[in-house]
């Protein structure tokens, strides 16, 4: 059941008009409520609009019109940025690492989630608790030993090293979501498949996974956001600029720049990929991050 529908259901009776006296009170309350919401919306959107407007200004216009809306928009800042901050390379690297980590998490997470939710054997609850609580270990705590470990395995400055670290960081939430999702699927389906002679692995790959598309979408998008937004891990693992991830590349370029219009263009470019992702995957994203809250 989606959060959307259930909230809408609750809303209908909650918002139903009662007596006239209450309705007139409701109008004042509603106005205040809308005012509050619009104020917050403005606070969210204003910095974004200000930055986009600055990014479209030429340095000449910026000198005379620092805070106002742009009058003569130019894309010069963006084209400068795209070559200077190696935007294309960064995007490619982020996609390689994110997809690698997501596929690895899907495979390991769905197997473990299935075992925890649908098989009965000693130690599965212990495993579940250990994996979940490993999510409580701050990355800053293991940052030094992980660095030493990657150095020892020759995994520094490699996609594989970064993918493995992200797989470990994303595992708790991924296993949790798969276990919760598989737990909600009827066991009768599995028993029917078993009576037809399917093996456990066959049941997992041919019965469960095709039904698990929502869980795949949710874990996929959550881990994508984790990889894409992260600064510290790629800063630690990657060393050569041509392997650096998108956000780190932008951040390092922003640290070098002095020209405010160029900085604004870099910020806008840095915000675009996930904004676009959000427009397409909003439903799964909101369900994903609120998944743990209401079970």
């Amino acid at each position, binding site marked *: 059941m989606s959060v959307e529908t259930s909230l809408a259901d609750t809303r209908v009776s909650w918002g139903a008009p009662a007596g006239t006296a209450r309705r007139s009170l409701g109008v004042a309350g509603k106005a205040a409520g809308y005012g509050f*919401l619009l104020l917050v919306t403005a606070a969210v959107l204003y910095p974004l609009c200000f930055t986009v407007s600055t990014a479209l200004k030429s340095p000449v216009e910026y000198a005379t019109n620092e805070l106002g809306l742009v009058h003569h928009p130019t894309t010069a800042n963006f084209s400068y940025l795209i070559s200077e901050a190696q935007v294309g390379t960064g995007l490619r690297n982020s996609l390689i690492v994110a997809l690698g980590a997501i596929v690895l998490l899907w495979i390991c997470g769905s*197997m473990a989630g299935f075992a925890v939710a649908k098989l*009965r054997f000693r130690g599965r609850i212990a495993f579940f608790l250990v994996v*979940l609580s490993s999510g409580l270990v701050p990355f*800053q705590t293991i940052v*030094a030993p992980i660095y030493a470990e990657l150095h020892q395995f020759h995994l520094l400055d490699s996609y594989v090293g970064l993918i493995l670290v992200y797989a470990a960081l994303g595992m708790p939430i991924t296993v949790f979501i798969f276990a919760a999702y598989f737990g909600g699927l009827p066991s009768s389906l599995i028993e029917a498949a078993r009576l037809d002679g399917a093996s456990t692995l066959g049941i997992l790959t041919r019965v469960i996974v095709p039904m698990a598309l929502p869980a795949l979408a949710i874990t996929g998008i959550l881990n994508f956001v984790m990889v894409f*937004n992260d600064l510290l891990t790629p800063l630690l693992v990657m060393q050569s600029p041509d392997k650096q991830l998108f956000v780190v590349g932008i951040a390092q370029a922003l640290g070098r720049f002095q020209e405010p219009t160029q900085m604004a263009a870099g910020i806008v470019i840095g915000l675009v990929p996930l904004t676009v992702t959000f427009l397409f995957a909003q439903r799964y994203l909101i369900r994903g991050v609120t998944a743990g809250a209401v079970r």
Partner: protein
Amino acid sequence: MGATGTLTRIGQGRRLPKAPPSLVGFGLLLPAMAIVGVFQLYPLIRGVVLSLRDARTGALTAHNYDRMLHDPAWQAAVVNAGKILLLVPLFVVVPLLLAFALFQAFRGWRFFRAVFFLSWLMPPVIVGYMFTPLLSADGPLHSLLKPIGLGGLAHDWLANQHTALWAVMAVFLWTIFGLGVGIYLAGLATIPAHLVEAARLDGASRLRILRHVVAPLLAPTIALWSVMVVASLLLGLYGFIYSLTNGGPGYSTMTPEYYIVSVLLNELNPSYAAALGTTLFLGVFAIVFTQMVAVYRRVVAD
């Protein structure tokens, strides 16, 4: 509640006939276990060992912990962490009010939720760079404050050591409140409509319904969100500090997590970073654990 509910449901799973479940089961758990073991749990143990060794000679020593106790940067970072935690109520209440407002059958609540969510999605380090000019003395905040007679309030928020930490917190609130709204709305959606209906038929006002019917039923969600807030305040600020202040001016925005990384990457001292990291783990664990026990005991008592 979250994990507990899932655990209970899993516990009710029916025993499946035939197949040797233990072998197949462990086989299915193995890849996930291996990754978590090698890149989460082993580093945790190795970090403790590393922290007890001398950076140069490798001999066993408590030197790193001794240095920690007398390190002014670390002391400043711990004090700042304490100051930051004073803001937890703000981070809990602001999204709650917005979620309540959205819950009042507003047209377009999906639009507002989407807008609020958008800010959470943005890379923290980029958000920090976005706010740097906005918070400067000649920035747009100043031009907003001046006409309404608050021009005296406008100054370089990030360059002043009395305001820098609070400016970072404001940026963080801007980023994270939408996530809280989303989580509260998901919690509100689970409240049975007939309870609200019954209270209304009894003549209770909206405010009273919120206070006495909705809020108690929402307590588990509030508890979950407050634990998330504490964890992200202590461990999720790296990108913001990196771009906004770099820990300065002085040590005024230095936090434990930021200091650990600078010890590792700037001072190149992994043993000391491991000692600080282990201490951070114990501190965060103690705080979150205490919080969970306190909060869930109250939830159960209610």
